[in-house]
């Protein structure tokens, strides 16, 4: 039986997520390396037009639909996708390690008896075999691993692999209406913080630490984030102090992020914070203490008072954008 690659797509509010496009591009690369084909599967969502996926090289997507599947449901998604894999003999399953992918990937692995690796940031193909690299200890070390089984579920860290949209061609869509729904684990509501970009998905993050001195001073962080189109992040100290929600925490007991630009304001750079953001492509540090560890990994540092710098920085960026 020919080996084939399957990308599991994710939709939120009827939009295919950017992280899924990254997964398509990796699947395409896998298929070129192994000389096999790849296709995609999507469960749920009211999506009628998949034509935008053609430029990523995707030739075929199977869409399982039912209005009950528009919200993520672990039981149904696991069953539908696992059966689809078994019926079509896919052997490499590629998904993004988003909150959706992290939940779903291991469930599929058990159902199809596959090996699994999550949070992949790099891979190589050598002697007919893939070697995967993933961060451990929140990025303080890297692990290179090989899955012993041929059947593999590979979850990619979002925001690491770049989607490449230089292909032409159409995406064939096969719609498969699902009638049997399992309601034993049911998402009844999705509460979305309106208009906010999540740190895990952001291209730019502006984070504040204890140097911001009080919860109310984070309006400066928010204003800078607004002009940059960025997400707001926070250090553990300010989350523990109750100034910011845990969903914004960057670091070992928060989120590990790798945006294009990370602006650390009033953050000294404790080892658990550095672990969570050190792989950011460009790091700016603003801190009064010239010996703060954050400066050791910052591309650009300003040894200055955040309250003096931020209002002017906000104005300068507004000028640049106008």
């Amino acid at each position: 039986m020919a080996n084939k690659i399957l990308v599991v797509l994710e939709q939120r509010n009827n939009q295919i997520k950017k992280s899924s496009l990254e997964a398509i591009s990796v699947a395409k690369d896998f298929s070129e390396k192994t000389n096999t084909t790849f296709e995609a599967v999507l469960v749920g969502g009211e999506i009628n037009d998949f034509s935008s996926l053609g430029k990523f090289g995707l030739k075929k997507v199977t869409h399982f639909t039912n209005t009950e599947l528009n919200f993520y449901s672990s039981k149904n998604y696991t069953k539908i996708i696992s059966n689809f894999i078994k019926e079509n003999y896919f052997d490499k399953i590629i998904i993004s390690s988003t909150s959706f992918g992290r939940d779903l990937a291991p469930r599929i692995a058990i159902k199809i008896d596959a090996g699994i690796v999550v949070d992949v940031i790099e891979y190589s193909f050598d002697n007919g075999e893939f070697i995967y690299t993933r961060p451990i200890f929140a990025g303080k070390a890297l692990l290179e691993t090989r899955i012993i089984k041929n059947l593999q579920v590979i979850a990619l860290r979002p925001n690491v692999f770049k989607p490449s949209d230089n292909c032409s061609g159409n995406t064939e869509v096969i719609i498969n209406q699902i009638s049997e729904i399992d309601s034993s684990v049911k998402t009844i509501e999705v509460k979305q913080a309106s208009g906010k970009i999540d740190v895990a998905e952001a291209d730019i993050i502006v984070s504040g630490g204890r140097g911001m001195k009080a919860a109310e001073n984070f309006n400066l962080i928010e204003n800078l984030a607004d002009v940059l189109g960025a997400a707001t992040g926070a250090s553990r100290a300010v989350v523990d102090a109750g100034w910011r929600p845990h969903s914004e925490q960057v670091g070992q007991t928060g989120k590990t992020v790798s945006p294009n630009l990370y602006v650390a304001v009033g953050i000294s750079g404790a080892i658990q914070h550095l672990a969570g953001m050190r792989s950011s492509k460009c790091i700016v540090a603003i801190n009064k203490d010239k010996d703060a560890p954050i400066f050791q990994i910052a591309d650009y540092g300003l040894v200055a008072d955040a309250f003096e710098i931020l209002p002017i920085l906000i104005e300068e960026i507004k000028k640049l954008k106008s």
Partner: protein
Amino acid sequence: MKIAVCISHVPDTASKINIGNDGKSIDQAGLTYIINPYDEFAVEEALKTKEKFGGEVIAISLGTDSSKESLRKALAMGVDSAVLLKTDKILDSISVAKALAEAIKEINPELVFMGKQSVDYDNSIIGQLVSEILGYNSVSVVVGLSIDGNKITAEREIEGGKEIIETQIPCVITAQKGLNEPRYASLKGIMSAKKKVIEEKILAESVSYSEIIRMKKPSIKQGGRIIGTDSSAVPELVRLLHEEAKVI
């Protein structure tokens, strides 16, 4: 209600991590170990649930003898009994999940709690694997939980929001920071935990699903370029971000 709680014994998050001489493991020199921070939320939630509905809480850990320290911490917080699945090996996630599932099956609990991830290998998949092996319902990354009879309502954290999920027992819940405030162990709890016997089971050999090839340190970023010490440097910073780094 019978409740199992899975606990992982991990290096303190303030630890510097170095690679061991074999290139495949972490150098143990100078490391202090703690109970996995997310597992503390799991223990707290298990204890709260027991206090509300009655029953018992059994802690399970998989690892070397030293994992008993974290089991004792859980006992000191109020867990009734503890089991150590003893192994000196670093197992892959699926093997860990299978061993935990085997031990949980013997206990046959209505609820299983564990941290959403262990802060060493950061897989964040053990709860989901265990629930699929056992055929339990499950919700991962939970920041809010209410239990009413057999019915469970859980708030699961997702990017930029929350999913509100309804399910029933038996169920595996993986705890995220924010679920509760873990209690401190009382002196009485610490004293009685010292006297409790931790049941030990030797893990049988299992089939590996993956193999560690090597571990390495990430490349160190060359930082340290200071642009200035007051607001006069701001225009230069913006210029560098725009023209040199090309990130804005």
